[in-house]
């Protein structure tokens, strides 16, 4: 039992009653990190001094009776592709191993307004490319449920830190499943908001038409609180959506009577582990017992999603990562003969194999003579995949299925086979291409490893997604299980 097993309301009540100080919460976080992170390897950078300074300032607010933010005093870990002024931000890449950001991402400004405390920066696949965290150029993150298994990726550090009690909540980013899949593998709650709901300003870009920041938490209520704090229009992000932000917390009514659930046959068919499917069917029975109805539907273009995604995301990445040229920041190669050699050598030394692979794929797909065949074709298929979702959402409130086809696999078991690795994302990628919101919540265990249920909603209908997830959670205890560490 640690302080992080308390609910947000319990923590806030105890802080209010001065029975607990924010400095205690931060001390608890570092105690757990010091005890466990050698094994988990979730953090790349920690700043205990700054965190304790922040905590002391918040304790003063309590003493003086000042207004408190929504996430008051909660210790948070931040994925290392979200820039934090004065706190090293590496994207888990050698290229940025010394990068000291000169501004804050908008989400960091919002967390500051909400009065959370930043503990440090979390490990990830290099530039968010990967689904296992084995592509971190520093060290792989381990799954807290079984250290021989991967935590998923790319936000593996963010998911593992919450599962191991090394942060009260974390922020991750999701391009093709990078919040939901690690949340599923680590038995925690991961929410990918609708594209455009949360500002991307200060998120180091991977694939700009897909990237989205979201919370990873130990339960759905916390997810609603963090989303409430970080959502909203930002003029610094030209793709930010001008929508009113509803009250996500009051959406957690527990009432899902009459809710219409679609279960795509493609999400429980071939390629999905039988035991994972069984967990999902049991979860659907729980939802049914609460008054929801479910039917099988078809999302016929699902099988084209992975190919579409890898062409589009890699193309966008090859363009976005052109900025890493060794001129303004990052690691420059030593003694290049001229400017062109400097670009070549700096990039070749700074990027790991998966990043190079995707830059190569994207550059090829965008190159003269191939653009129509690959990039434009993929954009057209993206339209068909999006229409799949529009068709189902005309009749149903949410779509439910597994988050990933299997539980967490063993470290090293797929590193030599990029294509197999890419197929782990087959159930999260279509959602990203459609731009709609989805949450992964714990719904079972197979051989001691967590299974996640994915609840997908209509664009900007995070309220329903959270309400369904919360109703399920209130009637199950999977989210209360903790790994033995």
């Amino acid at each position: 039992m640690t302080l992080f097993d308390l609910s947000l309301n319990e923590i806030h009540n105890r802080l209010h009653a001065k029975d607990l100080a924010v400095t205690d919460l931060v001390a608890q976080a570092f105690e757990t990190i010091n005890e466990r992170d050698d094994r988990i390897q979730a953090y790349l950078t920690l700043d205990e001094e700054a965190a304790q300074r922040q905590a002391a300032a918040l304790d003063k607010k309590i003493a003086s009776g000042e207004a408190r933010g929504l996430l008051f005093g909660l210790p948070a870990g931040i994925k290392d592709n979200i820039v934090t002024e004065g706190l090293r931000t590496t994207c888990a890449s050698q290229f940025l191993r010394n990068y000291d950001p000169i501004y804050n991402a908008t989400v960091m400004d919002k967390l500051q307004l909400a009065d959370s405390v930043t503990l440090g920066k979390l490990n990830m696949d290099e530039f968010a490319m990967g689904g296992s965290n084995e592509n971190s150029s520093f060290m792989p993150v381990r799954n807290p449920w079984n250290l021989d298994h991967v935590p998923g990726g790319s936000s593996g550090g963010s998911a593992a830190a919450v599962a191991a009690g090394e942060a009260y909540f974390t922020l991750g980013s999701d391009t093709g499943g990078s919040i939901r899949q690690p949340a599923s593998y680590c038995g925690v709650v991961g929410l990918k908001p609708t594209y455009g709901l949360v500002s991307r300003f200060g998120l180091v870009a991977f694939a700009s038409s897909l990237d989205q920041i979201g919370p990873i938490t130990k339960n759905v209520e916390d997810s609603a609180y963090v989303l409430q704090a970080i959502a909203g229009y930002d003029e610094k992000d030209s793709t930010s959506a001008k929508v009113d932000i509803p009250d996500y917390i009051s959406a957690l009514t527990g009432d899902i009577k009459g809710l219409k659930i679609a279960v795509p046959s493609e999400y429980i068919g071939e390629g999905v582990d039988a035991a994972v499917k069984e967990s999902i069917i049991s979860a659907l029975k729980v939802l049914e017992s609460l008054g929801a109805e479910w039917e099988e539907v078809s999302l016929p273009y699902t099988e084209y999603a992975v190919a579409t995604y890898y062409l589009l995301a890699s193309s966008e990445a090859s363009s976005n990562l052109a900025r890493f040229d060794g001129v303004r920041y990052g690691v420059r190669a030593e003694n290049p003969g001229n400017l062109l050699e400097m670009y070549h050598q700096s990039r070749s030394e700074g990027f790991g194999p998966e990043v190079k692979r995707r830059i190569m794929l994207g550059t090829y797909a965008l190159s003269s003579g191939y653009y129509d065949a690959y990039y434009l074709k993929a954009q057209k298929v993206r339209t068909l995949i999006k229409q799949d979702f529009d068709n189902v959402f005309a009749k149903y409130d949410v779509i439910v299925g597994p988050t990933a086809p299997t539980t967490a696999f063993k470290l090293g078991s797929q590193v030599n086979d990029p294509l197999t690795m890419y197929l782990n994302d087959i159930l999260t990628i279509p959602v990203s291409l459609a731009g709609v919101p989805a949450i992964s919540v714990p719904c079972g265990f197979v051989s001691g490893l967590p299974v996640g249920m994915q609840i997908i909603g209509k664009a900007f209908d995070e309220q329903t997604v959270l309400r369904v997830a919360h109703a399920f959670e209130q009637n199950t205890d999977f989210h209360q299980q903790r790994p033995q560490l």
Partner: protein
Amino acid sequence: MTINIQDVEHVARLARLDLNQEEKEMFTAQLDAILKYAEKLNELDTENVEPTTHVLHVSNVMREDKVHESLPIEKVLRNAPDDEDGQFKVPAVLE
């Protein structure tokens, strides 16, 4: 083979990457496999389908043409591998 080693060398040049022989061979095989897999998309007739470049319907987002404060030069140069007189410094462009 969709992809051969010359294609990989050409693309690496475009992407400003230097690859060693081992990397060239590995990427030739891997990109070939990935692109073969991607050919699956050709099963679909997309002749009359509009491409999706973006899921939200936004275009030409403009801000007001107002002067804002910019970042101070010392800050901007903080991460520069090399700088001189308030400017980024790079090796010679021409020999």
